């Protein structure tokens, strides 16, 4: 019974965070760009969340006649489904975790690799040239960045000797892994931005060239699903970063563990938004080139050095 409550609680909190991020993102973007942002509906404009959601629900949910109907419908469900499945392994506190799988990190990587399908299928099923171009960019970008996303996490796994996120957090009691694995953190975060295709790596939906990329044809709540999927993705990458590199729920005792986890996660969500506010979008070939020629070798080097040092210290 306790499991059911944990699952429901996690779902409730996550979906509310994803909706609340609409407001947070717009207000923070406005602040960093010297504007006011939405400030009319409710205190500080927070009711914009409600207004936006209602608007999405009441818009016409249009399926273009030239689209592949069933694939078109399935695509937005895949992104939310795969991201929500990844939260199964996130340890919010020692008790609040849906399942501490012993293949934890691998499960996260597997689910995030399934997330590619939402972009690919959404773009293909729309039967629209811009969508198709966005889908192809998205697929190649996510495959390229997934490779070293896994590799960048393996340094931490080596130091802990376990794939379980619970064990990884507990291993950071004395020192956060950010100190021992700074390169791993940077690589993982870059890969995370590319995985969630957030700015500056939002090349699959680059609005200045591709209209809205893979979701040009989507409207109503189907578009809303892509939207929520993106915010959930940001939350997921932030949560994994916190659990892997910043000691998860660990912190001084004046705050409960869950508060530490959410506080740290929130800092990274804000960092995602700051990146959007400040960085221009690279060109597509530049993105692929940095991925394969710079970041992947760096991840391999990081892995090799970590392995060698771990062997020396233990040996």
């Amino acid at each position: 019974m306790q499991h059911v409550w944990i699952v429901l609680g996690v779902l409730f909190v996550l979906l509310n965070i994803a909706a609340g991020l609409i407001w947070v993102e717009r207000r923070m973007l406005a602040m960093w760009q010297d504007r006011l942002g939405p400030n009319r509906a409710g205190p500080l404009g927070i009711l914009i969340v409600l207004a936006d959601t209602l608007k999405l629900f009441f818009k016409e949910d249009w399926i273009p006649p030239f689209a592949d109907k069933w694939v078109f419908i399935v695509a937005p469900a895949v992104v939310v489904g795969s991201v929500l499945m990844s939260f199964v392994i996130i340890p919010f506190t020692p008790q609040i975790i849906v399942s501490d799988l012993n293949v934890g990190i691998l499960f996260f990587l597997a689910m995030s690799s399934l997330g590619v399908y939402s972009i690919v299928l959404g773009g293909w099923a729309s039967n629209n040239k811009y969508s198709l171009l966005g889908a192809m960019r998205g697929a190649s970008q996510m495959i390229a960045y997934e490779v070293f996303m896994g590799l960048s996490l393996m340094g931490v796994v080596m130091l802990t000797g376990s794939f379980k996120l619970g064990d990884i957090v507990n291993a950071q009691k004395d020192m956060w892994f950010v100190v021992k694995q700074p390169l791993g953190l940077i690589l993982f975060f870059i890969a995370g931005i590319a995985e969630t295709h957030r700015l500056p790596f939002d090349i699959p939906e680059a609005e200045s060239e591709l209209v809205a990329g893979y979701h040009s044809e989507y409207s109503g709540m189907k578009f809303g699903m892509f939207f929520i999927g993106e915010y959930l993705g940001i939350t997921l990458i932030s949560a994994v970063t916190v659990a892997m590199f910043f000691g998860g729920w660990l912190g001084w005792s004046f705050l409960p563990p869950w508060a530490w986890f959410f506080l740290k996660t929130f800092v990274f969500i804000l960092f995602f938004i700051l990146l959007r506010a400040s960085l221009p979008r690279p060109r597509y070939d530049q993105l692929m080139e940095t991925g394969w020629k710079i970041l992947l070798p760096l991840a391999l080097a990081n892995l090799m050095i970590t392995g060698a040092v771990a062997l020396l210290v233990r040996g």
Partner: protein
Amino acid sequence: MNYLFYISSIVAIAATVMVITRHQPVHALLYLVVSFLGVAMIFLSLGAPFVATLEIILYAGAIIVLFIFVVMMLNLGRESAIQERQWMQPKTWIGPSILTAILLGELLVLLTMGGSAPMPQQTVDLKKIPLSLYGEYVIAVELTGFLLMAGIVGAAHIGRHKKKYLHRFLKQEEEAV
């Protein structure tokens, strides 16, 4: 636990049948993804979570994405679906189906006779896999590495661009250097 095994097996088999019978290549690939997920569940129910996740990461998450990528590039339209339909005539599939039906019959007979021991259900922990890969089967791993390397060299060779000059001045400039 046996129920989980049978349910995921049925899903995997049904999805595989759909893969064969779909005319639209992307639909077939989607069912192939479902079939891989089913196989991953089978591994999980047999106590091999590591193999299950690898199945999803490698096959469902990377290889099939590349397949779909290629299909998208080819932009197969209605003509290819019609062609597929023409190929799905009974005379093409009836021969192999009879032969596989015979094999299936044999398998059923063997299973009902109960001659073989049931599969042992034990959890294979993560450490055992790399230890056996880099211990007992190290030669197989290295040979696979050779094979993959040959594949990469071949792909790099085929994918190499011939240098195109947009203008003869640029060519002359480069030749001068």
